[in-house]
């Protein structure tokens, strides 16, 4: 199987769909002439021309709204948020229009669009440029929200996203654009609403998404040295959500630790804990543990930033707590 970077996987999905379907266009800041600040769209302007690769002014609300209008007309726009941090300027368009148009038009209008870009922290971007927004957007009916971590899923979920008749919030692992992985050739559509068992295990279920999954795999390795067998679940689809895979795993392991970069309160981990206790109450041998980002805006200094994100040690400690050892 060909090996490619997360970045290239995203680009190839977009390029393939653009070849296949003329209604697919890209909009965003510096995605064309500049090549994309993270080079995800590099080369696409040359290939598809300026009517399909549209550089915009710095007006996230305006161009996201314009893309919604295009989608209503049957186009399939893909909007790049240079980073998801800037999407706060487009929240009104995303939540009030994209998520609800189909509903308040009684099904007459649809919004087949993708909004994508890097999400999450890790390179000292500090408070305004570090957010993990899965729960924030995942709250709203009408949206679909995904967060792939492997190049394989980046491509497969992007293909699915572009073909979706609904608005998709596509949260890329910004820190992982350069990481490589196997990506099969051709149309490998990864469906939404299916979690991935990234590693099988029996003693405890580790739940995460995005770049935390890689950390959980490292933790699982470390735990195996202590003869603790951890199952790692990559949620990847935040809305719709795969309750079944999650619950089945916990029914087997009886214990769960949920890890996220985002803040604790009213978050993905809150929901995961709520679901587990709802559906696996009698199977649980310990309360679900949560490991979240520090309750502070993201700091700049390297040492503070490292301290602000979930660490392997924190997860291992939580595992020991749920195992009562």
């Amino acid at each position, binding site marked *: 199987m060909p090996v490619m970077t997360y970045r290239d996987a995203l680009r190839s999905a977009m390029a393939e769909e653009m070849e296949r379907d003329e209604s697919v266009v890209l909009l965003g800041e510096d995605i064309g002439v500049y090549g994309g600040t993270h080079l995800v769209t590099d080369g696409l302007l040359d290939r598809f021309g300026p009517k399909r690769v549209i550089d915009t002014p710095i007006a996230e609300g*305006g161009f996201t709204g*314009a893309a*919604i*209008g295009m989608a*209503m*007309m049957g186009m399939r726009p893909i909007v790049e948020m240079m980073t998801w941090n800037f999407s706060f300027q487009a929240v009104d*368009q995303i939540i009030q229009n994209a998520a609800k148009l189909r509903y*308040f038009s009684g099904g007459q*209008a*649809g919004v087949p669009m993708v909004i994508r870009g890097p999400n999450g922290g890790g390179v000292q971007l500090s408070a305004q440029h570090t957010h993990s927004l899965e729960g924030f957007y995942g709250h709203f009916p009408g949206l679909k929200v995904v967060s792939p971590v492997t190049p394989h899923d980046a491509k497969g979920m992007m293909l699915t996203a572009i073909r979706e008749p609904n608005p998709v919030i596509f949260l890329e692992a910004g820190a992982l654009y350069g990481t490589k992985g196997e990506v099969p050739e051709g149309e490998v559509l990864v469906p939404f609403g299916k979690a991935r068992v990234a590693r099988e295990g029996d003693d405890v279920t580790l739940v995460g998404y995005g770049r935390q999954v890689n950390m959980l795999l490292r933790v699982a390795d470390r735990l195996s040295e202590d003869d603790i067998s951890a199952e790692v679940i990559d949620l990847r689809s935040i809305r719709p959500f795969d309750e079944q895979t999650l619950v089945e795993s916990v029914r087997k392991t009886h214990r769960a630790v949920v890890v996220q970069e985002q803040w604790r309160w009213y978050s993905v981990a809150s929901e995961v804990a709520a679901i587990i206790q709802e559906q696996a109450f009698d199977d649980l041998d310990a309360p679900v543990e949560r490991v979240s980002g520090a309750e502070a805006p993201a700091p700049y200094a390297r040492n503070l930033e490292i301290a602000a994100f979930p660490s392997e040690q924190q997860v291992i400690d939580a595992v020991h707590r749920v195992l009562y050892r």
Partner: protein
Amino acid sequence: MATTKGQSRRRKPSSSDDGPVAASAKANARPQTQKGPAPSRNGAEPQALDTETTLGLYRKMNIIRFFEDAAQRGFRQGKVGGYLHLYSGQEAVATGFLSFYEETDKIITAYRDHAHALLLGSHPNEVMAELYGKGTGLVKGKGGSMHLFDVENGLWGGYGIVGGHIPLGIGMAYALRYQQTDGIVQLYLGDGAIHNGAFHEAANLAGLWGRDGMNPTLFILENNNYGMGTSVERATAMTDLSAKFDSYGIEHEDVDGMDLFAVLEVAERATKRVRETGAPYAIEAITYRIAPHGAADFLERYRTKEEIAEWRKRDPIGQVEARLLDAGVDEARLDEIKAEARAVVDEAVKFAEESPEPEIAELYTDVYAEVNAGDTE
């Protein structure tokens, strides 16, 4: 509308021997209290219309007015819920511009949207049923007054967030050219919306994309001098609203929005221009709502009774009526048309009252389109 469905489309008002609107009437058009820019600076005299065409438009305007009166009654009776914003007083604007609607065009506006639906050919029964929250409503009772959609007839909503629909409209305009149609977007917005950031960002994109012929948007700024209770003058230090389009390289003009004939003249030219150039153009229609902002807003401390009375003298329907009488139309004929219009609205109310509520199962439909169900429309 019900009995004229289809007629309202692609019909351009034809000229006749009706006299042109007197220039002096236009100069004095605006009562002193109105703070907006001066009306109609465009040199050309409005085209004369033949009497039958005028009567047709008169009929529509009456239906709109009666419809709004009935909606207000329904609201008072507790049969219409939510927010309800009436178009009364502004009829000449949408009536004029939508006379030049063509089938490939798309219309988008804010929450003051009943007239737009009626003019585009939505059935008054279904519009009223929507207000009544019935399953037979235009959007199945799911959107209410603020969210009228009738995409077959070109109406793409009906939006409740001030400014929020403007970016959508200019994106739709891009799509129309991308898809190589000759349609245009008529994008209606209020004087209050122009101060919103969404307007700025969208108008700038429209100007930019219009440079390449990729933005056939006709901005129709309905300046009724108030955003709720805030007059234009209290909302901005620069009150010549259409001049704000200068910032985006979008040309513009003003029109007396109380005068149907003035609107028709501008509308014909403007729609043609936008259709041909693929570039945006903006019209500020100076108008007035004689109704309160919303049906629930009974306190009108922000304006005087005298001001309203002053504007009522220039009622757009009254002006058309006067013109028709001048042209020798019988009063009886006008009464007959009004009675017909009333009957259309009475029938709509009856239909709405008698319609069933939506099925509860509808609560969960239209949240998502089914995946792999092919196209979204």
